[in-house]
């Protein structure tokens, strides 16, 4: 892609010769993968709910599966965004709901019990990935990394705040167009308010 984008650069603009390591960590990449997976699964749940419920012996619960699909899409979009921690933790919470729903379908009178077992095993595996990803991005992007410092000694005024206060009023010429608007004159009672 970067080579294609060179088409819009001028002749003298620097072009990439050798690329350095990406800033994206393994956890960031896992978040992206899980985000796309979430959107894909969500679309499948939304548009193939009948087939899914039939395969799992859950006929009549299409609306529930579709609502789970919407949840998956939402979590996926969040996982692909810069708020990926929230996205992945929402996926972990959603996995909990999936597990509860599938576990309730493991009843002995369900003729598709085996399929439910396979689906449950898959969800447990994805839950593990979601948890690892959520832990990873939360730890990597936590504000608590590094030292906590106090900048109370950084005034920026070598002669102190007292000496600085109003120092520029003595010699700064306010540009005419940046003076307060004429309406301020009304506010200070120099004129009466007008209508539209």
């Amino acid at each position: 892609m970067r080579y294609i984008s060179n088409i819009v650069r001028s002749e003298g603009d620097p072009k990439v010769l050798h690329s350095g390591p990406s800033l994206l960590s393994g956890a960031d990449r896992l978040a992206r993968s899980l985000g796309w997976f979430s959107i894909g699964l969500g679309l499948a749940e939304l548009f193939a709910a009948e087939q899914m419920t039939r395969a799992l012996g859950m006929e009549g619960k299409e609306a529930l599966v579709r609502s789970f699909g919407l949840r998956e899409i939402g979590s996926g979009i969040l996982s692909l965004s810069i708020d990926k921690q929230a996205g992945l933790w929402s996926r972990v919470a959603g996995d909990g709901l999936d597990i509860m729903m599938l576990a309730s379908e493991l009843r002995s009178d369900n003729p598709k019990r085996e399929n439910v077992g396979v689906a449950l095993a898959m969800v447990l595996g994805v839950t593990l990935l979601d948890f690892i990803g959520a832990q990873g991005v939360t730890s990597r992007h936590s504000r608590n990394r590094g030292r906590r410092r106090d900048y109370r000694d950084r005034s920026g005024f070598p002669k102190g705040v007292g000496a600085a206060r109003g120092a520029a009023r003595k010699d700064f010429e306010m540009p005419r167009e940046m003076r307060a608007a004429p309406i301020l004159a009304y506010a200070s009672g120099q004129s009466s308010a007008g209508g539209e």
Partner: protein
Amino acid sequence: MRALVWHGKEDIRCDTVSDPRIEHPRDAIVQVTSCAICGSDLHLFHNFIPAMLPGDIMGHEMMGEVVEVGSGVNGHIKKGDRVVVPFTIICGECDQCNRGNFSVCERSNRKKHLADKVFGHGTAGLFGYTHLTGGYPGGQAEYVRVPFADATHIKVPDGLSDEQVLFLGDIFPTGWQAAVQCDIQPTDTVAIWGCGPVGQMAIRSAILLGAERVVAIDCISERLSMARAGGATTINFKEESVVERLNELTGGKGPEKCIDATGMESHVSFAHPDSLYDRAKQMMMLENDRPHVLREMIYVCRPAGVLSIPGVYSGLADKIPLGMLMNKGLTVRTGQTHVNRWTDDLLRRIEEGQIDPSFVITHTVALEDGPEMYKVFRDKQDSCIKVVLKPQA
């Protein structure tokens, strides 16, 4: 040479790239000795500003030594000069430049045809920014080509360190212009949202311009401590209501002047439902900006007051209370910074010891550590407020 290159959302890399070359007689090549990561670089890092392309070199706060000049520079700068490079590229000759409106220079944006379509009328070219502002390679690199170099520079004397003058290229004049746009009177309360680098410079500028009281609003303790050091009263919006506290400080009337040093990425929290709404729409690409601060400023500002907006907004925003804005008779002033309009005056103030902008630097690292510092700065880790990079280290 090495440079920090944008490869996509949250992916900056230290790449080896070809050296820049003189393309036009008015160009110069500057060997960068110091450059910085700006808050607005984070909007690019997050891919919230449209028209970035993989392979774009980041950075619009830089300074260094002139190593080559084109034949048309005509002695305005010469090899060996030490210069700060302003982030706005200016021709110095067009109608807008002649009026001092440098950030809307009519000639420096080489992709003006694109900008005209998006903005109605294009603005100046900017270094290390979107292709809507020319797509010029930025200064987080060992070398940078400076177009219109005879006008686009600030010469600096040898007696001052890089750290003292580097921010003349962006955040210092940006904070200054934000305060100047308020036309501060000695009786004014100036409220400033956001205590990042631009907010810190706006606080110092409002103090220098003689505000009776400066109120700084943020939720990060180290940023608030730096704001207090500069003479501001602070409000931690996670601990108290901004509107109630500002009204309390102003006898119920609200601040006369309000500065938005936050821009399009306002803090998102359950305490501010509008911020959640904006974030959700932004994620669905239904809104570009999160204007919570702008809404709050319009609400709390004293009638007939002034709103100054140096914070970067990129496109469309929802639910702006225009009725409130109109009925209260508020004046809105905004824009990218007309850097060169202010820099002679600000350089003199640095030389006279009125202010030393280096106070804001919390991290200084080599260029190759730059990508990681984007993350540290964005995540506000290690009490990071301002990062300076040293490409020659």
